[in-house]
């Protein structure tokens, strides 16, 4: 098996871009306004994919996630019933969508912590974000296995 190059530079630069965008927002309400704005830019999941099988159930808010595999890369579309969750989902999709399964498996999403939203990834938060991240990695592992 040939060794593939894992290029995580673009994942890293996408994270850095987000960190920079949030750097000047010191007020929490401004930060959340920005997150909600990001949610509006999330590639909308097609209605046909907004089905129970694609539903990632959080305790409070729900996330639908769909993965497309094209030219060796994974592309995600998603939605959530809560605006803040939708914004957080949009940020994750923006960073990871369009990368190979290997890149996604190797990625370390530190930006959530860096912009002060670490609490959203705690298992007790149950807003669906942590479950969504797990689901993305599962997709990546599954498509990576399929490829070989």
């Amino acid at each position, binding site marked *: 098996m040939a060794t593939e190059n894992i290029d995580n530079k673009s994942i890293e630069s996408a994270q850095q871009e987000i960190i920079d965008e949030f750097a000047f927002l010191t007020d929490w*309400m401004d930060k*959340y306004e920005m997150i909600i704005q990001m949610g509006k830019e999330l590639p909308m999941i097609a209605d046909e994919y907004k089905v129970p099988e694609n539903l990632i159930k959080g305790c409070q*808010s729900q996330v639908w996630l769909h993965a497309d595999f094209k030219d060796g890369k994974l592309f995600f579309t998603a939605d959530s019933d809560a605006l*803040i*969750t939708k914004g957080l989902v949009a940020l994750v999709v923006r960073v990871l969508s369009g990368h190979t399964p290997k890149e996604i498996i190797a990625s370390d999403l530190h930006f959530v912590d860096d912009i002060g939203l670490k609490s959203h990834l705690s298992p007790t938060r149950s807003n669906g974000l942590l479950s969504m991240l797990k689901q993305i990695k599962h997709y990546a592992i599954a498509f990576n296995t399929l490829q070989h």
Partner: protein
Amino acid sequence: MSTILSFSEIKELRRDFPILEQKVYGNPLVYLDNAATTQKPREVIEKLDLYYKAYNSNVHRGVHHLSQVATDAYEEARKTVAAYIDAGDDKEVIFTKGTTDGINLVASCFGRSFLQAGDSVMITAMEHHSNIVPWQMICEERGATLKVIPFNAFGELELDKMAELLDDSVKLLALTYVSNSLATVNPVKEIIAAAHEKNIPVLLDAAQAVQHMSVSVRALDVDFMVFSGHKIYGPTGIGILYGKQEWLDKLPPYQGGGDMIKTVTLEKTVYNELPFKFEAGTPDISGAIGLAEALKYVRRIGIDRIHATEADLMDYALTRLQTLPGIRIIGQAKQRAGVISFLLGTAHPFDTGELLDKQGIAIRTGHHCCQPVMDIFKIPGTARASFAFYNTHEEIDALVSGLERAAKILL
């Protein structure tokens, strides 16, 4: 009619609660999640501290001095609880881990002795999961069924339906005194009387009641009543099961272990008498003592004054919240206590709660462990503000302006 606590009295009492003095995200903490758990007064915190510093020891066991002191304090705590709920006898008061533990105890012990295939247990549609799931489990085990009293659009029980459902198959009625999601105060005295007419015993979930109003188990003539210490200014991990002696004597023990036995041989064990029969193992000694201290604290202020003060706060909050465009109050019973469940326009409760949190305002969001209630209203959950006597009108104002700010972002 009790007079309400004055503004200056509330300010003074707030000093008893060290936790309330902090800032959260740069804003003064506004704690409106009292239905989830209440904060603890200094007296309770210091009592726990003193217990571990001065007389920590196992109860009912040792001959030594410390064990005697601890046993006396633990049994004194039982007396304080018995007096608070007006129980006829101390031994009718069982220390548990909390409301959930108490319900599981009764469901398991009552079910094993009195439920047969074809029997049923009656609950209401507004119960907390902790007063649904234990009954579902024991009903499944015994081949019994669960009957449910519905409620109307205001969140009031449909008592005429209860009369229809209350047939010979019903062996026990378990219901909440005050709904944790709708705020409804159920007419439990009437309901208990109606059940008793058919010789059906009643378990009352008083987790959202005892901290808000005077509750007398003898005046209600209730057979079993449960509540949690931490929702009435006491420590977590301690709760109370009250049971009429005639019922507790009829039930088999719940768990086996130390302290619940009289004699043990490898062939046969003779169980201890009440209340120890239901307290296997080393109990939460400090928790029991802390809970008693909390009840004394409540008694010093006066539960009737607390009730009147919170009713005033509830009225003020309802009036102020209703000025918000698009607000929807979930649960509009005439008799209410403790909480206000609401939706801010089309905003998801999670978003509402998140934006309030960042303004220092603590509320609860979600289904409040009452998924059936949310299903009936066809909503994913609500935002819920819940009150204690230490909350002020200013805090309600902060909630309302916090919601106005959230609405600007979310709607």
